[in-house]
């Protein structure tokens, strides 16, 4: 029995790790070649479409001004750009700041949500913003984002030159990475396990997930899809699947960069990530039933990957941990000997080298301080993640059993200055 469980845990864990290793290889290859079509695209010089940027904002007084300023610096013709800032039921000065900027810059369009459409979370706000927009291309940024000036240009350029792409997603970086140990962890996580994994999935399977910010979607598509799902906690993942089901793919184009603020304290991080995890669990359960009816087989594969991440992987890790502890006290007569220890060491080394590749891509990220943090991160941050996924699953099960209403947790902002750029 113990042996079977141990083998099961090894299979689950290593399925995930191997898949990740494979993605890292793809991510690296994608990094080497993603800029190559740029020259050709720039030559095409098609007339630029009108773009509507949607920025949902709920009590964002700490960060919204900085975000609006960054939007105004975007290198895109003013007459073809509208920046719609949706003040969703804010009780602070968010609305006032937006209105002030609107008076000064007409391309800033305020949308103040009103009951019954107010305070419905990010999806609800985006749907309100969509109603007020007129652009051919819809671009979404979170309220704490400061995109680089060329970010929008790259998103539009990629979309114009890739008709099969329904959505173009860029990459995001952590603006406050040097603020606390937690933001350093998040910075490394963002570079390694979000954008590198994203690049890997795109490279191998032409699959990418909408990250919730710094992405462009064709109006025609979001209209056909009926906007954002207001029930979904992870509206970005949910929208991803619907886009693929429509027959389009989502292109990952890391030339478009945005900087965003990440939680500086563990409590805020825990709440934000619990929402993410629950959101993804919701999406997996929602689409798993129709998995074999999906048009795009790659997204079906991706859904299985999500299922592994949010359901099986942590079970495998916990199982293996429990067996390891029990075996230290009682001989469970595990028949997989030396090789399991070797694999454990290799898993750690793999983790470290994967992160090292990702850090090497970014300027000044591959430094000794980050390297020490990476060595330490495996035993701390990554383990807390496992506990978090478990907790999120518990909440999701509880919500299902007691038919509780979904509450959208708004991430608390800190208004830190960019210490990276």
């Amino acid at each position, binding site marked *: 029995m113990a042996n079977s469980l141990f*083998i099961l845990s*090894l299979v689950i864990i*290593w399925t995930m*790790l*191997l898949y990740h*290793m494979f993605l*890292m*290889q793809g991510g*690296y290859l994608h*990094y080497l070649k993603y800029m190559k079509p740029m020259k050709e695209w720039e030559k095409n010089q098609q007339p630029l479409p009108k773009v509507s940027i949607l920025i949902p904002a709920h009590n964002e007084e700490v960060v919204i001004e900085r975000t609006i300023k960054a939007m105004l610096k975007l290198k895109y013709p003013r007459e073809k750009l509208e920046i719609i800032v949706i003040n969703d039921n804010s009780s602070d000065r968010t609305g006032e700041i937006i209105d002030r900027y609107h008076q000064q810059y007409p391309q800033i369009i305020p949308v103040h949500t009103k009951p019954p459409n107010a305070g419905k979370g990010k999806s609800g706000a985006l749907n309100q913003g969509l109603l007020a927009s007129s652009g051919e291309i819809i671009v979404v940024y979170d309220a704490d984002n400061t995109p680089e000036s060329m970010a929008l240009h790259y998103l539009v350029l990629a979309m114009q030159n890739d008709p099969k792409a329904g959505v173009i997603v860029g990459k995001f970086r952590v603006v406050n990475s040097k603020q606390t140990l937690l933001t350093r962890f998040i910075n490394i996580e963002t570079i390694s396990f979000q954008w590198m994994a994203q690049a890997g999935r795109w490279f191998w399977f032409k699959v990418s997930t909408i990250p919730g910010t710094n992405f462009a979607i064709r109006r025609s598509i979001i209209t056909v899809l009926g906007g954002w799902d207001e029930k979904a906690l992870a509206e970005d993942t949910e929208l991803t699947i619907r886009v693929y089901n429509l027959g389009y793919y989502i292109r990952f184009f890391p030339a478009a960069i945005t900087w965003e603020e990440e939680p500086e304290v563990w409590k805020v991080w825990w709440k934000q990530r619990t929402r993410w995890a629950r959101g993804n669990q919701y999406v997996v359960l929602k689409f798993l039933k129709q998995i074999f009816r999906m048009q795009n087989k790659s997204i079906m594969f991706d859904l299985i990957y999500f299922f592994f991440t949010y359901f099986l992987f942590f079970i495998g890790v916990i199982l293996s941990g429990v067996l390891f502890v029990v075996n230290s006290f009682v*001989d469970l*007569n595990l*028949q*997989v*000997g030396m*090789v*399991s220890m*070797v*694999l454990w060491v*290799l*898993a750690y*080394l*793999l983790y470290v*080298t*994967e992160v*090292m*590749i990702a850090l*090497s*891509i970014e*300027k000044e990220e*591959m430094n000794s301080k980050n390297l020490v943090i990476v060595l330490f991160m495996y035993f701390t941050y990554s383990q807390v993640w496992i506990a978090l996924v478990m907790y999120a699953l518990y909440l999701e099960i509880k919500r299902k059993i007691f038919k509780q209403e979904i509450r959208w947790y708004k991430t608390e902002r800190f208004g830190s200055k960019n210490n990276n750029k």
Partner: protein
Amino acid sequence: MQRKNWIVLSLSFILLFLAFSDRVYANQIDSSFHTLIIYSKNNDNQEEMIDQLDQLASHFSSTVTIANDTNLPSLKRYHYVFYVGLEEKKLSPTLIKGLNDFSGKIIFCGFNIEQFQERIDLDIVDRVNVKDISFVNGYQKQALVKFNEMLTLNNDIAEYEVLIEGWRGNRSYPILISNGNDYYFAAKSIDELLFHYLAQSFYSIFQVKGQVNKSAFIKIDDVHPGTDRERLTKLTSYLSSNGIPIILTVSPIYENKESGKELHFSDSRELMRSLQALQKKGATIILSYPTFSEQISLEEKKAIIEEHIQELAVYQLFPVAVSFSSSQVLKEEDIVLSRSYFTSFFSASNEFYPSQLKRTPPLITKPTYLDGSIWFPETLGEMEPFNPTSLLHLKRKMNELQMVEGSIFGITFDSYLELDVLIELVNRMKVISDKQWMDFNDWEHSVNVPFISIQMNEDGTLTVNNNLPFIREFMYKQQLSFFELALWILAMVVALFIIAFFIYTFQLKLRLRKSLFLERSKHGQ
């Protein structure tokens, strides 16, 4: 010059004689006689008696054929025919005529003798239980373990030669008689003692001169990765110093019943090296036939036997024969399976064995059911020092076997027993007159399983062909399951990727440095 030639010639004759006397048993097995055993029975099931006659006849014949009386083959090529009436039955005129016309000797056994008046004029009138048997003009009476039912005759047998007679009180009954050409064996079944008497009588039947020398062997049993190396060394050193060839029954796996853990020779390297050294010095390695659970399929059995041989071969231990342990529950399929891999068998008798191995013949044999393989019978069973009955049994068996010329005294000695027990056994065996210790390296043996072939010639040369794929050999040496092997392959793949990722990291670092340098040049910094 002539004188020198004489010396060489004389020496050659002496050497030839010595070689001949050493291999006397082998030569008898290689006899040119062809023997047919015909049996009458209403169903097709063979009986133990047929197997026993097969065992004895095979010692004296080149080939033995067994046939039901309804399927009579042509008798032309046979030198000897055994007719065994297992049941009373009216025989077909073809059979009666065929046997009546047969020019060689016929040995009639059991029922239906009255239908062969032309060959031997005898009638069965009754049955009697005898308790003792004896050779006429030979050994004194010996008691059977239990009453044995014999068929009694009403004829005047004064003109017949009685070879074996049974006794009930003071009255004797002929068991084996001859009219000068043919024989009649009056027993309905053959118990152990009668088996020995019959074996000795076969020398007369086949007109072969018996050998005075007896052969003996002590087989050290139950050697496995959990065996106490020091104790084993004491035992083998003692055997060696007394000129007794070492025979070891080896199993590549030992399962600790309490912990459930399996030990392999990779866990007992010193013991493995000791065994290799013994083998190099001439010890004979025999595979201990694995013990199987009741539910196991034939295919699974095959796989296990093949794995055991392959594993031993990987450890440079080359089994040349197989040995059945008396504690095993054997089925007929085990015999069939073994003979497909081995040409030499070791087995003691066991009441629960299939009829083919139920009783040990007193002579080395190659019965038909072993399909050309040789059986070295462990006639003395197993040394059980703490069982007084067993010791008495050993003494009695040695005494019984003494009367059979060229008989074999084989005994199993467990490797966990102490040296003093072995010394006691060797001392006990000193009573065997004209005894020669058997060296199995003087025999031809062959073992064939997929990828491994082991051949031993009569001159003791061992030829091994090992074509095991590297992966299989690696798995045996490291004792890896397929899952573990898969994990090691996985580990290697991951290690390669880790190296690749390191290289990527340095490449990226260089690339980044180059781009920063270009950026600075561009901006004039």
